[in-house]
């Protein structure tokens, strides 16, 4: 309960994790790959940070900050505005679970 609340995942209507190779969350995550690398596993020393393995809370908070125009202006201000809160949450869970190949 505490864990769920801390991550802000109290919504009980969230769909269960989809482990299929060709799931909708895979397609959604693939829209990030053009800049962040396949599965968010971009080069670790690059200017654009990898997003695989990010704690979900941090992912969600970063996207919120981008949408609200906080911090350094980058392309993410525009990109983040394209994803709903639900999509952002789903992506956060997905990338948190990605480990290096």
């Amino acid at each position, binding site marked *: 309960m505490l864990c769920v609340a801390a991550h802000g995942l109290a919504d009980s209507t969230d769909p269960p994790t989809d482990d299929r190779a060709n799931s909708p969350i895979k*397609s959604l995550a693939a829209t990030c790959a053009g800049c962040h690398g396949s599965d968010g596993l971009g080069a670790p020393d690059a200017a654009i940070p990898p997003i695989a393995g990010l704690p979900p809370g941090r992912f969600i908070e970063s996207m919120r900050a981008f949408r609200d125009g906080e911090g350094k202006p980058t392309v993410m201000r*525009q990109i983040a505005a394209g994803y709903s809160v639900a999509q952002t949450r789903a992506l956060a869970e997905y990338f948190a679970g990605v480990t290096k190949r």
Partner: protein
Amino acid sequence: MNRRDLLTRLGAGGALSLAGCVHAPRSRARPLVVVVGGGYGGATAAKYLRLLSGGAVDVTLVEPTPHFVSSPLSNRVIAGEMEIADLTVDYDRLRSRHGVSLVRDRVTAIDPERKTVVLAGGARLHYDKLVLSPGIEAITAPIEGLSDAHESGRIVFAWSGGEETLTLQRQLAAMPDGGVFAITIPESPYRCPPAPYERASLVAAYLQAHKPRSKVLVLDANQDVTAMGPLFKRAWRELYGDMLEYRNHYGLVGADGATLRLRFDVQEDVHADVINVLPPVQAARLAVDAGLANVNGRWCEVDFLNFESRVAQDVHVLGDSIQAGPMMPKSGFMANAHAKVAASAIVAELQGEAVNPQPMLVNACYAFVSATLAMHAASVYRFVAEQRRFEQIPATGGASAAWTELEARYALSWARNIWADMLD
């Protein structure tokens, strides 16, 4: 020879010739997708078809060149800031990591009725699904003398991967100080809206550093800069001053390679020391000849849910050769995005699953204004079922407020990550 032997030999890599070999129709057990073109769209499609099917779908990629060479970032090679090797990536990992069969050949014809493609080497490949990402071709006929000038190597386009990029770089290196570089830009739509302006900017930067009495003439058929206009014009004013001149409404009608003169529909002729013509373009000859370019005879209309041609069943078209939706530029980034949507839809169809009803596309283009400064334009698109097409999500369309060194670092980082997304 049975199928396993054939695939093993294909998997061995290298330039395998399939002359005289007819690839028999597929057994129902393992569907085969043939992907034509190993660029931003095709390479991505090949990899993602394998990934999203968990290896259950066989994929053959037909591409004539031995390595992938990126056109994005190639303006830096023209300006002497990068080498072609920095833009070059091997195809081998598609095979070794993802099990894509690589065929180094060129597709010369498509038969959608029989579901086969013919290769220049003589072989015929059968497909269950065909993915075409063949790129664009130049339309030179309306510009008198251009075809000859291009054949002779005097006037290059340098608008798709590699050799001509180097030729243009050498022409500029050989140009005397005080010379004029002229670049002509065709009417929209064309491949990569900001790229001609990036090229002009980078050449200006190079000339400013090495041949400071030289001039850059941007002769644009469009009524205004087609991408990041205010930003480019401000950059030109602030960084290059009188060195770069932009002229709009310049419709090219003639180009003479011997005299290096350009003729325009309305204005006076222009002479330059180095000329780069960006010709009007259309879908690649292969797509046009197959009857797929049903929009003005130039672009291929597709169903945006799965990128299937509206003209030919089980033929999916990606990248620059499609008739894009509103506000959807022709770019490598977009081709990579198309490919992932198409791959998911094709795998779903082949496996009898539902196609994702809410695909999304993202586009992010970085453009350099000098060797160390860049800026971006980006958009996110969602699929609107009622219109059956992608539409830009309003809050997402736009560009940087300014060019920065950080954006330049992002641009280089983007290239590494997208090439890995395509080819690793």
